[in-house]
């Protein structure tokens, strides 16, 4: 990663984050978002986050071709399930992350 590339990325990320977080507070202060658009936008993050997480759970990256091959990752899947279950009942991110990491560590050490 070159210096120029790094700083361009940081500038891009900072700009996009500031732009989106402040949009209706600054540049778009005079605009009104139609309720139907506002309603649909709320599903965008769920889609984006799922698209980021799924490759870690259901795919393997081929080192040579850099393409993803379908391959269930049981250790990661069980770790995720335990995290969701604990999060559902305890509502505590700390507790559920700890559980998920313990499950991940134990399974990858003693099972695989």
């Amino acid at each position, binding site marked *: 990663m070159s210096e120029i590339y790094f700083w361009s990325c940081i500038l891009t990320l900072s700009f996009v984050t500031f732009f989106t977080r402040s949009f209706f507070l600054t540049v778009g202060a005079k605009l009104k978002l139609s309720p139907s658009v*506002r309603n649909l936008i709320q599903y965008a993050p769920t889609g984006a986050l799922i698209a980021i997480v799924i490759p870690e759970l259901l795919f393997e990256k081929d080192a040579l071709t850099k393409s993803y091959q379908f391959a269930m990752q049981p250790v990661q899947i069980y*770790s995720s399930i335990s995290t969701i279950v604990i999060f559902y009942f305890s509502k505590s991110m700390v507790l559920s992350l700890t559980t998920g990491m313990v499950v991940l560590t134990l399974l990858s050490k003693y099972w695989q």
Partner: protein
Amino acid sequence: MLGPSIGIFTWSIVLNLAIIKTGFAVLNTIVMSLAVYAGSAQLASIPLMNGNFPIWIIFFTTMVINSRFIVYSAAIAPHFKDLSFFQRAILGYLNGDISFAVFTRKYPTATTDSKKEVYQYFLGTATMNWVVWQLGLVVALVFGIYIPNEWNFAFAGTLVLICLIAPNLKTPKEITIGIVSILVTMFTINLPYRLGILSTVLAAMCTAFLIEQVQRKNV
């Protein structure tokens, strides 16, 4: 306020550790945390940056992931329309997931509290979140070297994202959107430049739109 703070603190440690473990330089990690200050966007762009993807892909991916913030800003803007541009810009920089969630829990709709009080509440809680987040970075930097790579700590970042997704998948409608998103991700995963992310986002929004149309017809 303690609950969210502990959440932010751990999330910051986990996320920054995950970033460092991908081979990101210490100084770069600090710069990123201070300038960008957006956990999920950072997490998503790190693999792209490490892979030297074109800037427009990074622009696009973070735009998509951050699109929720536009909605947040629309929701809080009515409270702050009398403030100066500079003050509103500061609030915008601090308007992250947790700050927004904490603020809207106290002020879900218009309020009779004085404008100054509302402003100070947002500024106070959001600034504290910022400080706690940067403290998490310090802890990650100091203790990161003691954590062996075999621990697969980077996966903790994925688990944080899962904790953010899970509460959004409760109603049958949301679960349907989730299942469609997973399927579309699986079929678009090998598209160039991570365009699978955009495909999935569009599919999620289209599914929501279609379900609402069907529901409206049945009413």
